[in-house]
């Protein structure tokens, strides 16, 4: 069973996000970039499925050449191949644009896939829309925010997280599945894996190679402003005895915040 996993290079979750107001974008200076955590779960799931069922795992990213580092990490984890779709456009947060690029890459380069795996969202854009869009563009079933996945032949069963419950979804392959944290515990790269990854060449594919015309990759969303969140004012901190402190807190909630 051949699996494609789609990954993104994102700022570390510990990073403090600074805004470059001149370009309306996130300042990359001093930021450590990582493989988006949900994508890491998706890569791990692909490797486990390959170990159980055979086949290949191909990892795909859209971005500039910095994303090669992210793809190398996936190869070091154990992916068979990686492909970069080169995109020099600054981050647009337009999910449809990326979905169109990925769907075209699948059609052109990986026609014999059984499963397309994604993270449920990238950490950063927080769009949570590309998996469903790719599923629609390729007319495939989708199961998003998955915490358990079982594949048997050309049938799949997935548990998808919803508010306060799980939906058990049955579907047939090929399909799109997006991973939620908790689906598995991603492995660390081994030294052997890192060495093997170093030797692997990562093909770079252009929009032209994929036959994408300019109007197909023109962003349809515009960021008109980017701001830091409003700063909260620190309130009152007390260090009274527990009983008195609890009384004060409830008094605050009752009389000032008027919540209780």
């Amino acid at each position: 069973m051949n699996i494609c996993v789609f990954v993104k290079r994102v700022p570390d979750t510990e990073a403090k996000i600074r805004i470059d107001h001149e370009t309306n974008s996130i300042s990359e200076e001093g930021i450590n970039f990582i493989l988006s955590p949900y994508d890491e779960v998706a890569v791990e799931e692909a490797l486990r499925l390959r170990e159980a069922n055979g086949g290949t795992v191909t990892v795909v990213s859209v971005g500039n050449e910095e994303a090669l580092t992210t793809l190398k990490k996936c190869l070091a984890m154990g992916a068979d191949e990686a492909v970069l779709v080169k995109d020099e456009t600054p981050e647009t947060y337009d999910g449809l644009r990326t979905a169109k690029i990925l769907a075209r890459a699948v059609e052109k380069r990986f026609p014999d896939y059984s499963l397309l795996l994604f993270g449920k969202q990238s950490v950063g854009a927080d769009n949570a829309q590309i998996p469903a869009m790719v599923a629609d563009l390729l007319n495939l079933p989708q199961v998003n925010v998955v915490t358990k996945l079982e594949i048997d032949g050309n049938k799949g069963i997935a548990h998808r997280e919803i508010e306060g419950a799980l939906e058990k979804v049955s579907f047939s392959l090929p399909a799109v599945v997006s991973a939620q944290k908790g689906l598995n515990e991603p492995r660390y790269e081994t030294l052997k894996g890192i060495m093997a990854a170093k030797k692997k060449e990562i093909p770079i594919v252009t929009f032209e190679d994929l036959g994408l015309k300019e109007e197909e990759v023109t962003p349809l969303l515009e960021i008109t402003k980017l701001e830091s969140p409003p700063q909260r004012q620190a309130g009152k901190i007390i260090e009274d005895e527990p009983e008195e402190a609890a009384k004060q807190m409830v008094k605050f909630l009752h009389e000032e915040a008027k919540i209780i």
Partner: protein
Amino acid sequence: MILVFIEIREGKVKKSSLEVLSEGKRRADELNTEAHAVLVGHGAGGLAPEVFPYGASKVHVLENSLLAHYSASSFSLALVSLVEEIKPEIIFFPATSMGKDLAPRLAAKLGVSLATDCTSTACKDGKLEVVRPIFAGKAFATVSFKSSPQIASLRPNVFPLLEPGAEKGEVVKKEVVIPEDQIKGQVAEIIREEDAEIDVTEADIVVSGGRGMKGPENFDLLRELTAILPHSAVGASRSAVDAEWIDHQHQVGQTGKTVTPNLYMAFGISGAIQHLAGMSSSKCIVAVNKDPEASIFKVADFGIAGDLFKVIPHLKEELKKAISE
């Protein structure tokens, strides 16, 4: 016209959808147009009276026995047929698990872009402008659309409900055609725990614990608080989840959930940047932590620098008293 998708779960209209409809009505008034609602499902029309009071002048009901169970593929097909007929300028979804699953599928079918999980909407020169948090709230992006219809999903628990109006309006039923082979993937079953909890994204009050809870057994203290507090849920920091003290679905912050309850209570949470990103938009924040220098106090409206294990028992008594009064 602004069209609002109304989510039905287990035969009931979700409150978050009524919040979205209320916001749709506010924008419709500003644009001098109408807000319509759409109900999808077998026999969904019976719920129209619950929807009218929140600003819909018309409720479209899309029926077909194949729509009895939710699937993104069948629901998006049904919605496309309606959208092509009534041509709304704006479509709003709730940014719930269903809304986030469905809206992108519809957007892809229509070939338009989508703004997810917005926390404010406005009109500018007759067009929609939305604000959406990115990096789990570490930054806010103002977004406008270059494609039409303009589609956005709106975050639950953020937009105020309208003062309910009349329960009457026009219901337009439409029998939609769905080819059976176009239904991709079906919900076989919904698995709900016996004592199902409210999700942290939907709760009015979130009672969260972090590393300072010291172990999984102590989360029972927080559950005792949620048993007292109305419409509340237990949350957790990433370190508590990574230590496997509590399940991931309770995690608040980046790589967890972003919450905006009326009240966020943080116990033994230091306030790492990823956690603050996910809860700083709460309307009121209180915290208990041993360390008076903890970052959580920088965002708390009221804090107790002290031992949570000594404070919680008193807090329970005081809350019980205050609520019963």
